């Protein structure tokens, strides 16, 4: 069942991807509706796939790294459907959809199908902590993608030699606006996620902070984003500088989200 759904979702995303690519390269407006339709179909089947996984194993579908990866990419694509109608957003799709496809395939081929039940996973707070973290990673992933696009477009404009990307990427203001909104949302969710994590830690281990590598890295990531948010608020950081910060922040985020569990074994299963 989930195999079929995952394959279907991959197929839908792939078709949507083709339409977005046509739009990106040839700027054909006609493909907009088809692209959107297949994006929604992909999103629906992908969501259903996650739901079925959750029901089958009776756990939140973020219990293994592969599941969490799939869930994050699903939420990111979900966020993306909100903004897809804005100008020249196919550039974002061209980056996001392959990631979503890879996440589905990764889960399909390498995902541990039956994870060992972790005692901590039964605690109620975990059902708030994990979704918050997932949402925050997804929002910050969007910031990351928009920051990359911003940097490319800014270089095009500064160089005064318009080329391929100048014609195909959204305007700086659109990137800036969406990136800062998703940054605020992501930072807010991350803060809540870390707080609920601490409460969870308290109820399971008796301490708020147990110096798990993942916790340490999460706090470092949070500090970096906090600097960025403050820079934006107090020193009017915008544009290139803010974009570079968002990129570094997300790399750290990815490391604490996935990298740590590949290097060490803590009670954070991934």
């Amino acid at each position, binding site marked *: 069942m989930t195999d079929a759904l995952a394959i279907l979702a991959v197929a839908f995303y792939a078709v949507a991807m083709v339409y977005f690519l046509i739009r990106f390269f*040839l*700027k*054909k*407006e*006609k493909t907009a509706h088809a692209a959107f339709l297949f994006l929604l179909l992909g999103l629906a089947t992908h969501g259903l796939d996650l739901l079925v996984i959750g029901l089958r194993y009776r756990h939140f579908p973020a219990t293994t790294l592969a599941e969490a990866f799939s869930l994050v990419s699903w939420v990111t694509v979900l966020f993306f459907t909100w903004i897809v109608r804005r*100008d020249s957003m196919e550039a974002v799709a061209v980056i996001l959809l392959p990631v979503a496809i890879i996440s589905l395939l990764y889960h399909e081929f390498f995902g541990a199908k039956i994870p060992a039940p972790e005692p901590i996973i039964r605690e109620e707070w975990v059902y708030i902590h994990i979704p918050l973290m997932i949402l925050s990673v997804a929002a910050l992933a969007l910031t990351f993608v928009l920051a990359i696009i911003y940097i490319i*477009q800014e270089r095009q*404009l*500064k160089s*005064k*030699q*318009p*080329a391929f990307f*100048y*014609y195909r990427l*959204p*305007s*700086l*203001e*659109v990137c800036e*606006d969406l990136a800062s909104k998703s940054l605020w949302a992501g930072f807010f969710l991350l803060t809540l996620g870390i707080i609920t994590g601490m409460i969870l830690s308290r109820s399971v281990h008796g301490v708020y902070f147990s110096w798990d590598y993942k916790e340490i890295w999460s706090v470092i990531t949070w500090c970096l984003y906090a600097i960025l948010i403050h820079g934006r608020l107090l020193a*009017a*950081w*915008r*544009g*290139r*500088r803010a974009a570079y910060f968002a990129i570094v922040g997300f790399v750290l985020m990815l490391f604490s989200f996935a990298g740590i569990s590949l290097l060490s074994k803590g009670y954070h299963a991934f």
Partner: protein
Amino acid sequence: MAIKITGLSHKTAPVELRERLHIPEELYPEALKALQTKVPEGLIFSTCNRFEIMANDETTPESREQLIDFISDMRRISTREFEPFLYHHSDSDAVRHVFRVTSSLDSMVIGEPQILGQMKQFFALAQQHRSIGFILNSVMERAFMVAKKVRRETLIASNAVSISSVAVELATKIFGRLDGKTALIVGAGKMSVQSIKHLQSRGVKLVLVTNRTFQNAADLAASIKGRAVPFESMVDCLAEADIIISSTGSSNFIIRKDDVVRAMAIRKNKPIFLIDIAVPRDIDPQINQIDNTFLYDIDDLKNVSEANRKEREKEADRAEEIVAREAELFWNRLKTLDIAPTIREIQHRIDALRQSEIERTLKKIGPLTDEQRAALENLANSLTNKITQSSFAELRALANQPDSFEKIELIRKLFKL
């Protein structure tokens, strides 16, 4: 049906000649009337870049000469002077030519939007003066459809090429929408006025104008509904303005890096777009190094324009394919619309049928007297004539109706033509 185009354009003729042939607006109806006396259906395109006559005329095979004489008479110019510059297209070639012109593929700047509007105007005038009939009507309507298709499916019209529209295009790449933005004009060059009008049409809300001579600034401000500010306080306006266009005759920089650094601090790093169209330059080029500021001088704008032109030309190849395909399709349909050959073919078919039936009957009933034979032939003749006469009249009427393509195709099928 015989569609012909005779004309010249910026590609074949010098501007002096085009100027002489150009028909002023007030003389246009007269010209159409004169054309009507020469050909059953005719249309004149007369812009500063092109002078063409399109006609549908199957009665006179020498209509090319006829059209040349017509031009010579109407514009009072000897044939010798313009004939070498003319090109001639006929039938499917003529259809393709009109499609290319309307789609702006034959324009001096490929993809420029004016030509479509101009063609629509000539079409409307021709309709108004009834100088065109069903065939040219269909050709023109199809040409407009093809032009729209080309515009929709290719990028030939999407990138700006004039300097002022390049400036606007860059501004939208920086700011997204221009609604509510503020612009500052320093000095009052013709190009800056053009750009500002362009920007205003895209939603720029406030235009500040400054000039060393305050009165000049006030005059310009009044004409574009802007606000004049004294030249001394120009630097203070930098913080307020999102788009700055400078074109003074000053010999040294009037906007310096420090000014912009200070302005950026006040405006909290909101992006600023500076356009320097003065030669020598008004704005320190180092300003481009400041984050969130984008400075383009006149050469930069020309570079962008050139890059855009190249993008358009790449797209033009795709557009040519679309036009060629559409022209062929349309010409094939148009041919079926031409009812005369269809009627001829039906007549042949019925004649052959009648003849073979008479022969068959004669074989069956044996030899007849001449009188009897004539009576038999009369019977057959009047029978077929009665059928064809009324239906041919109907057919001729049908050819001029809007959905005649399908109907004529059906009839051809019925008779297995």
